[in-house]
Every structure is written in C-alpha cells, then in structure tokens.
C-alpha cells in the first residue's frame, strides 16, 4: 500500500486525529469492486492474450503454449483483406458520421433555442433503445423494396437494380446508424462551449458562411470532432451485427471472423489472436488520438501565453 497522504478533499478537523484513519474506510470501500474487476475483467483479458499464443489439438481443444503460429496465420492475405476492410469501413463510418453530425449538432447548439435539450434527448433516447431492433428496422428501411429505395427510384436517383443491402454501402450505413450518436454528443458539447462571438467576428470580417465555418467553427471544435471519431471508431471496428445484417459474405469484418472462430470454427486460439490484433489496431489509433490531444493542449497553452 502507498503511504497515506492527507487528502485535501477529506480534511478532518484537527480534533479528529490523522486523516489516515478515515482513509482506511475509503480503501476498504474500494476492495470489493476492485477484486471483482480484477477477477472478471483483468483475468479474462489476460486469458485471451495467453491463449492467443496457444494451439489447438487435433480435436479442436485449445492448448496453452508459447508459439506465434496464430499470429503467423494472420499474415494470410484473406485475413489481411478482412482487417483492411474493417479499417476502411470504420474510417468511412467516422467520416460520414462527422459530415452528418456537424450540421445536426451545429443547428441544435446554435439555433436550437429553447428546444436544445429536447432535440438532443430526441437523438440520444432512441440510441439507447435496443441496438438489434434498431438495426433490424434499418435493414427493413434499406431493403430492396423498402421505403428508401422506393423513394430514390421515385425521384429517379436509383433504378431497379440498385441495392443497398448485401453491399459494402449497406454495412457502412448500418454502422453509421448504429454509432453516429457518439459523434453528435461530443460535437454538440464543443459547439455549445464555443464562443459565438467568434462567428460574429468572422462575419464582421466579411467571411462567408463557408469560410467562417472552415476558419472559425472547425478549429474551435476540433477536439470534439476528434473525440467523436474515437468514440465511433472503437465500436464500429468491433461490430459484427451490421456486416451480418446489411452485408453479404464478401463484406465480413474482423468482428465476424472473431465470432466465427469462437462459435462455428471452434479455433479459440486463432480467435484470441484475432482479438489481440484488433486491440492492437485500436490501441494504435487511441495512442495517435491521445498524442494529438496532448499536442493540441500544448498549443493552446502556447497560444494563451
């Protein structure tokens, strides 16, 4: 245990003896939760990491070991294609979410007036309803004779052969529908915090709406956008429902592979290795984001000086 340092937030009056005594209570309060998380979360993640280095015996039972053959197997072009596709879909999902979420968050934050909270609630609440039911409804909407394609055919944008389901576009549409809320919330928060007089200044300096947006609004809300991208990228990268419902066999993502290795394929070590690979990719992405964020903060401090 670390030596107890008196915590300024739990100042005990002098009569009450050293604060170490009260600190003991807080420490004890932490024990059950910490033990639980260590057992069920940390141990299980370590198991995945360990098993990724294992093998299967001829019966398909996982064997612990210490070899890298699973990771070597991942070099297979088929796996690489799936990984690249997942990356591409997840990045595209971020991009589309960003393009859609910006105007939505902007309108609500700056022109929402009294209805701001109501509008944000109207966006957030459905996202907390059942993901599968929403995805299923979305797949009905996007289906070949669903309302969306009917409407597009009606105005002549699509013809009889245009399909959304069973294509990559369908998978990305599913991912966007699933996770765009994670883009809207941080963007909305950033736009809410933004000083509106900046936009006025941009206009006073004869900047058009587009220029004002690019040179004023966008830089001021960059951190919100970056946070939104991370929050969308993480679940999009691991999702396997969208590719299953909206895509065909040619659109599978890494999540589908992992699921397959654990359920149908019965190759747990390989599934674990795939999981580790996905984690590695996400970790790199997070690292990049954190470094950017730190640099941003440093720049801000620089500018303030």
């Amino acid at each position: 245990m670390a030596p107890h340092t008196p915590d300024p937030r739990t100042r005990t009056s002098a009569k009450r003896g050293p604060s170490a005594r009260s600190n003991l209570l807080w420490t004890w309060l932490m024990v059950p939760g910490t033990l639980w998380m260590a057992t069920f979360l940390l141990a299980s993640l370590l198991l995945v990491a360990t098993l990724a280095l294992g093998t299967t015996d001829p019966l398909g039972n996982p064997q612990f070991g210490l070899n890298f053959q699973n990771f070597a197997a991942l070099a297979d072009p088929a796996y690489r294609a799936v990984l690249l596709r997942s990356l591409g879909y997840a990045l595209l999902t971020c991009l589309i979410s960003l393009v859609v979420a910006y105007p939505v968050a902007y309108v609500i934050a700056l022109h929402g007036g009294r209805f701001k909270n109501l509008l944000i609630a109207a966006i957030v609440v459905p996202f907390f309803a059942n993901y599968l039911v929403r995805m299923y409804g979305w797949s009905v909407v996007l289906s070949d004779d669903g309302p969306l394609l009917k409407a597009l055919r009606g105005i002549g944008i699509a013809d009889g052969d245009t399909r959304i389901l069973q294509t990559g576009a369908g998978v990305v549409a599913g991912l966007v529908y699933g996770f765009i809320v994670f883009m809207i919330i941080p963007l909305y928060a950033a736009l809410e915090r933004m000083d509106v007089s900046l936009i006025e200044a941009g206009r006073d300096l004869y900047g058009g709406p587009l220029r004002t947006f690019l040179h004023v609004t966008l830089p001021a809300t960059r951190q919100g956008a970056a946070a939104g991208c991370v929050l969308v990228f993480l679940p999009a990268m691991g999702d396997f429902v969208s590719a299953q419902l909206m895509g065909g066999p040619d659109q599978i993502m890494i999540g589908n592979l992992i699921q397959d290795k654990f359920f149908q394929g019965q190759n747990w070590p390989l599934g674990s290795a795939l999981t580790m690979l996905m984690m590695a990719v996400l970790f790199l992405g997070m690292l990049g984001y954190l470094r950017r964020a730190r640099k941003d903060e440093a720049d801000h401090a620089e500018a303030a000086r």
Partner: protein
Amino acid sequence: MTLRPALRPKPRPAAETARTPGPRKHGTRPGTGGRSRPARRRGRRGTGRKPRLAIAVTAAFFALLYLPIGVVVLFSFNSQKSLTVFKDFSLRWYEAFLRDDHLLASLDMSLRVSLVAMAGSLVLGVTLALGLVRCRSRLGSLAGLIMLIPLITPEIVTGVAAMLLFKGVGITLSTTTVMLAEITFSISYVTVVLRSRIAALNPETEEAAMDLGATRRQTLRLVTLPALLPSILASGVLVFALVFDDFVLAYFTTGVDPQPLSVRIYSAIRFGVQPTINAVGTLMLAGSIALIVLALFIPRLFGRRGGLDLLSGK
C-alpha cells in the same frame, strides 16, 4: 453491440459540469457598435443567417433516425406477414408473442439478468466510486484504469474474454454467467457516472457533520449517500435498460436455453423474420425508452436539474 453511453474518462471540475448557457446569449451583446453589415441584420444576430443547408440535413437526419423505429412499430400491428405492405391493424403478433413459451422464457431471463446486474453493479460501483474519489492510493489509480477498459474496447473483446474465462474454469454457460458478465460491464458505467458526481459534492456538508460529532461511517450513511441518491437511482435505472438491451456480451456468455431476449431476436432476424419479432421489438423499444426518460427525470423528482449528462457521462 448494445450501445453503452460514451463516457469520458476525465472527471471534470464541477464548474464545467453545470450546463449553464453562460454569458453567451445569442444576439444581444452590448457594445457591438454598428460595424456589421446591416443587410445581414434580420432577426437574430449572432450567428448570422439561418444555415438552411444544415437545417435541411438535420431534418433529414431526424427522419432517417426515426424511420426504422417507425417501421418496426408499424408492422408489429400489421395483419399480414409482409414487411412492405400494411394491410389492417391487428394485434395478432402480440398474441403470438404471448403464446410463445420460448420467447416468454427469454423475457423472464432478461428481466432477471437486468435486475441482478443492476443490484450488483450498484453495490460494487457505488463503493468503488466513493473509494476512488476519496482515497488517493496506487491501488486506487490502478482500479480506476481497469475500470475504463470496458468503455474503451469494443464489446466483442470483453464478450470473448468473459466466455473464455468461464469455459476455461470449466463453468457451463448459463443465466448465471450472463449475470456475472453484465455486472462486470455495468460496474464500469456506474463508477464513471458516480465518480464525477461524488467529485462535485460540496465537502462542507460532510465536514459539518463530522464537526458535529458524526463518525466517518455515520457521515457516509446520513449525508453522503442521501446526497448521491438521485444519481444512484438514475444510473441504476439506466443500467437496467442497458443490460436488458445488451446483445454482444449476452451472446457470448449465454447458455443454450434459455437465452436472453436480445439473443433470441438476433437468431430470429438472421434466419428469416417472423413478424412476432416486430411485436417483441416494439415492446422492448417502448420499455427501454420509458426507462431512459425515467432516468433523465429522476434528478428532477429530487428537485435538481435532470440532465443528459447521465448519458454522456459528463
């Protein structure tokens, strides 16, 4: 994966969590001498003309957001099997659901899992959050880091890990294993939400209690916990809704029979839809939306600002 709220790991100072509009009322700022071009000064000042394009995008977004939900609800009342042609209003799919013993068993299981996860994660999460905020120790910062893992990894990772752990120890997957996995996930959520709440508490009330002779434990029971009660209740309701709707974790940790409702829905929509799923889906949507709205309003029942910060974890 079921969506869990996006949480910010950074507890922020209380000043920022109060969502006051601040001094930036659009329009009337004193002292903007008439430097701006009068042509643009119709109606509201501040952000210029209404961004028509952005408003159009927002309208389209709302339409597309609610269309899928509307479709599910509408066709749950369809007298035909079709998902494209609505014939007459009927309740036959709801009847079919109530006659389906498998689905009812799933509903029962989902409810039990949600209740247990709510109770377990509240007990463990509230104590953990109190400890994390109040006690600065190495154990604390480590626990704080472990807790963030579920929130920054895709759910499939924790799902796979939990499944391996149970099977590795030789536990057969069942309702119990789903409960254990869901508690683990929910602890993270409860802890993060309550951490910022505890950090925002005014320490003076507790100090006053101590000065009046209350012990640490009495202060906790009579002052701190009552002050946190609205947040605890609200996050509990939200955990219930999230666990009930959760799919990925349940999918990896459930046994063969019974299966949680969301897993049952998943198999149903993969292998051809029976319209009964529309009815089940509609009931689930109604239930979780009701719970979430309830969670948002709980703080108001206690005479405080209700808020979306529960969801965004701010």
